[in-house]
């Protein structure tokens, strides 16, 4: 009886090394793709990087179960989707205490109120962003613009960021978002309104001013 192990089929012989080499290959071939995928679901690029890492480490664990039925990229993407779901369910920013969360939402309220006079008129008239018939989607082609947009999204307090993500990226209704966040539809409406005012202001300061 031979004790020789065939590296292609014997997963018990030096599995750690086998998995490590495979993961390095996956990082080279699919790392950017997985990063983009994660970025489309979470706004923070550091979180997206961590998700790529968790996905690859998780893939090593379940490498034995990958039967080769689908492509490697499809398989890694399905692992990534699980990691993203786990991330979204986790209570985020644990270091942000209840007081911080409340304080930032009160700041959002004051900020939103400051946009209007007592009689409800705009204090500063919203500016023109796109000249005339400019296609808005053309602005989004710019990598620089998207960097600014992502930075602005990262500035939002937790719940506002989550609500914006659900409304804009995942295209959910107020009712659906209120179910997910456990807040009334009315309050979600207010949250989104204030968050949009904040995003608008951030983009105005960091992109449109002087353009």
């Amino acid at each position: 009886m031979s004790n020789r192990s065939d590296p292609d089929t014997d997963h018990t012989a030096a599995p750690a090394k086998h998995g490590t080499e495979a993961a390095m290959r996956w990082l080279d071939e699919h790392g950017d793709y997985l990063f983009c995928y994660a970025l489309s679901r979470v706004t923070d690029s550091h979180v997206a990087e961590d998700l790529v890492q968790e996905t690859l480490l998780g893939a090593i664990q379940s490498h034995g179960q990958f039967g080769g039925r689908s492509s490697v990229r499809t398989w890694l993407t399905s692992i990534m989707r699980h990691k993203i779901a786990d991330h979204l369910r986790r209570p985020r920013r644990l270091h942000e205490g209840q007081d911080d969360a409340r304080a930032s939402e009160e700041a959002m309220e004051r900020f939103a109120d400051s946009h209007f006079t007592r009689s409800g008129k705009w204090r500063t008239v919203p500016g023109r962003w796109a000249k005339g018939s400019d296609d808005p989607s053309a602005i989004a082609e710019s990598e620089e613009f998207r960097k600014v947009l992502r930075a602005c999204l990262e500035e939002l307090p937790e719940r506002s960021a989550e609500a914006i993500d659900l409304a804009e990226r995942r295209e959910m209704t107020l009712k659906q978002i209120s179910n997910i966040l456990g807040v009334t539809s009315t309050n979600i409406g207010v949250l989104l309104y204030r968050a949009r005012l904040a995003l608008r202001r951030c983009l105005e300061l960091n992109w449109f001013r002087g353009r």
Partner: protein
Amino acid sequence: MKNLKLLNLNCREAGRLVSEGMDRELTLMERIGLRIHLVICSACRAWRRQLTLIRTAIRKDAAVAVGTAPEHVRTKLSDAARERIRSAIAARP
């Protein structure tokens, strides 16, 4: 909001309805009241255009990020991030 009030919105209220209209169906009265306000208020029309642009940009960012856009537009992992991940993989027990 009471129906009579809907026919006489100020910008704070109209701005809120523009935002709400992006996430739910407005009632008939809300739609009418908002339309009346927007006809006479260019400031709120500008606000609506800005919200549309923000929505377009965020969705475009998502679409681009998933790799449906040409290579040069897609975001890549930074070299530093790659190194970190490589180390983490190599450090596995």
